[in-house]
């Protein structure tokens, strides 16, 4: 019951924060002067009347109410205005077509990063202060610090250009599950994975070394377990308590992806759309994507917190 109440409370708070951010964004956007973008052969008055008909000159609270109503009633997030490629297209539809590449790349990278990262972390912890540990820890430090776009450049230069193993940029088109498409995704997947592998390895190593020195490990050994048994049955399970929520959080935030990696490898994903929307001042796209990124961030935070309670029965959520 504690748990249920706690989750409800957290969800309520999250929705409140989300609402405030959306309102702030909306108001700040609507406070901007309305640009009438007249193209060759168009009449400024017609465009102004169009905008009036679309409610651009209504008072802001009325506009907000209508905006929310349209979203709730018909899932209508607005229409692209200034992004040339998507002019007069419903922003939601465009957004949905942009999701798969972003999600796929991030899912693939997590699928690589989680086992390798955790594996390296465990290995380093078991070989603590030996050369294996030092090698892993040093490389982890390097890989965590060096920005992801530097790997991306390296991957692009070495693997794609020099060794010609993969195409330099991602393929276009919508067949996401063909071999060619997968192959063209690999460079971006690798570039994303480097950082996360290092992150997981460092975190796992830190957690596991701490658990390995705790008293119950001594007890486990004294009652006759071998080192391997004690490590897998006692140490790993305890070390996983903070690691597992991290993995879950990662799988939520795969939705948001990385703007830079998407740009370098020309991934036709959400990040590119967001950038284009920002640069061309397409406010409906901007609102939708801002809401999306905010929501993903908030949701990941909540899921991580709540998953602690499910994974570790000792943690009682919201208990006083």
């Amino acid at each position, binding site marked *: 019951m504690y748990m249920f109440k706690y989750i409800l409370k957290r969800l309520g708070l999250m929705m409140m*924060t989300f609402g405030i951010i959306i309102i702030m964004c909306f108001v700040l*956007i609507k406070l*901007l002067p309305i640009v009438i973008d007249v193209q060759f052969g168009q009449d400024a008055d017609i465009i102004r009347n169009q905008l009036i008909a679309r409610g651009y000159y209504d008072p802001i609270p009325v506009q907000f109410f209508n905006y929310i109503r349209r979203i709730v009633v018909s899932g209508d997030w607005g229409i692209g205005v200034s992004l040339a490629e998507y002019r007069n297209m419903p922003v939601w539809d465009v957004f949905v077509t942009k999701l798969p590449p972003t999600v796929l790349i991030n899912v693939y990278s997590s699928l690589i990063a989680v086992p390798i990262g955790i594996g390296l972390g465990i290995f380093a912890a078991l070989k603590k202060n030996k050369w294996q540990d030092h090698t892993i820890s040093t490389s982890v430090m390097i890989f965590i610090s060096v920005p992801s776009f530097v790997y991306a450049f390296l991957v692009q*230069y070495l693997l794609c250009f020099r060794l010609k193993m993969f195409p*330099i940029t991602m393929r276009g088109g919508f067949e996401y599950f063909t071999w060619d498409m997968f192959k063209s995704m690999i460079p971006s997947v690798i570039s994303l994975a480097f950082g996360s592998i290092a992150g997981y390895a460092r975190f796992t190593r830190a957690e596991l070394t701490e658990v390995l020195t705790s008293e119950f490990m001594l007890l486990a050994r004294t009652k006759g377990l071998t080192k391997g048994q004690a490590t897998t049955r006692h140490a790993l399970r305890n070390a996983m308590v903070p690691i597992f929520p991290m993995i879950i959080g990662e799988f939520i935030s795969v939705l948001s992806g990385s703007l830079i990696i998407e740009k370098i490898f020309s991934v036709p994903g959400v990040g590119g759309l967001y*950038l284009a929307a920002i640069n061309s001042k397409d406010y409906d796209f901007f609102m939708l994507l801002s809401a999306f*990124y*905010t929501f993903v961030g908030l949701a990941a935070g909540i899921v991580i917190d709540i998953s602690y309670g499910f994974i570790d029965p000792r943690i009682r959520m919201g208990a006083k």
Partner: protein
Amino acid sequence: MDLLTQESEWGRSNMKAKDYKISKEKFVFCSNEGRLHDQKLDTKPMSYLKDAFSRFKRNRASITAAIIIGILILFAIFVPIFSKYTVQYNDTYYRYISPKNKLFAELGIPFWDGTKGKEATAQDFYFYYSMGQETGKNAIVDQEYSIIHKIGLTGREVTYYKYQLDTYQAVGVVLMDLRTEQYQNIQNYQDEKGIQVIYPITIPEQRPTSRQDVNKVGNYWYATEEINGKTSIILDDDGNLIPIYKSYTGTDDYYSALRYEGEGYLYDYSTKNQTGYSVRVNYYEYYIYYHTYVLQDGITEPMFLFGTTNYGADILTSLASGARFSFALAIIVASINLFVGAIYGAIEGYYGGRLDLAMERIVDVLAAVPFMIVISLLKYHLENVPQAVILFIAFFITGWIGMAGRTRMQFYRFKNQEYVLAARTLGANDRRIMFKHIFPNAIGTLITSFVLVIPGMIFSETSLSYLGIINLNTGDMTSVGTLLASAQPYLVSYPHMIFFPAVFISLLMLSFNLFGNGLRDAFNPSLRGTED
């Protein structure tokens, strides 16, 4: 007093007490007058910071990192001051020039000497090879090459030429329009130095006309013909190039003693046009002339340590200027954030209760706003404000939250401790307790996070300017991100453009992280003595 010292001496000796024979005279009554005092401690008191520093010193990685940071900061401060180039400098002929350092160039090491290895078709090869034949300034290092046969895509054997191309000489000879006095000055310079800058003019009608050679037309001093839109060389019966120099008419106003000897011929060195003269100049020598005699800006020869960009700007100077801005931005913003965050967190943590709850909600909302939203909204609203200022504001809006959180945590930990209670009992007011008694406990974490947010901020700044959301490229300013972004399309053909900025940013992030981690361990008193 006496007695006390003696006692401590006994304590130190290894002899057992019973071995001592103490004569009776030594037993005297301790005086009841006067008072016994503790001895003053001989050891020096160890302050928290000193303790932390001594622990920090033992961490070799962090010390190295600190030194690297120092070097990078010096690089950012001094290179723009002492560099002969500026950020605005650009030379349209010397674009994509390879990095060159004088030492390697003179030793002939084929690395970092302004050359790059090439494997090209006969056409490309002869273009560069002929340059050296005309001027003696070899675009192909020592005119050395080797021939490789490869099976091409169509299955036919293709001949490739392998050679080291000197990118500084590869510009070769360019056609340039000079005013009368410039033309005369160069001739005077030629006579004075004995260096040939101007080469015989070619006959305009015989220059190649294909579109891809529009900018290289000055280099064709020999006869060519156009086959399928490509320029192809015409050789004479002996297999030599046929010069297309304009034969001597004496109307070229060329009086310099340096003349190019044809076989018994003299050539014209310029053709007159409306504004002056059209002349063929060797760009390498012209560059030296132009910078030492005309501009007198201290540049004695073209030499770009980190190469040049696609605009012909010097990467070394641009990178250092960008780095300078990044450092300044990060350090200023981090200081402001530290200040605001510390006060906010102190108030939250100290007063707690409802005030804390209310203030935490503000923090919650602000922390949940993605940085991209903040920066784009600011950009929309402050269109006339320089983008650097927008960056400052954006980093400030989101940056102080972390500092506030850390301070708040420390205040929660310490505000109910006995010594705080004691201070309050003694009548210290809130402000005194907050900043004199509790705040020093937060200094360690705050310094650590101060150091650790700097690379984060520089990374964000680089990313934003890389993505083009923030454009810092205004005249005398540039940023590392802009350099990276402008270099990315040339990653394959000119990797040096991306190499130096990327190495810089990686080194910076790595050393700041190492340094920050070292500080964190140093400020953690629970690690005292663990490294011994």
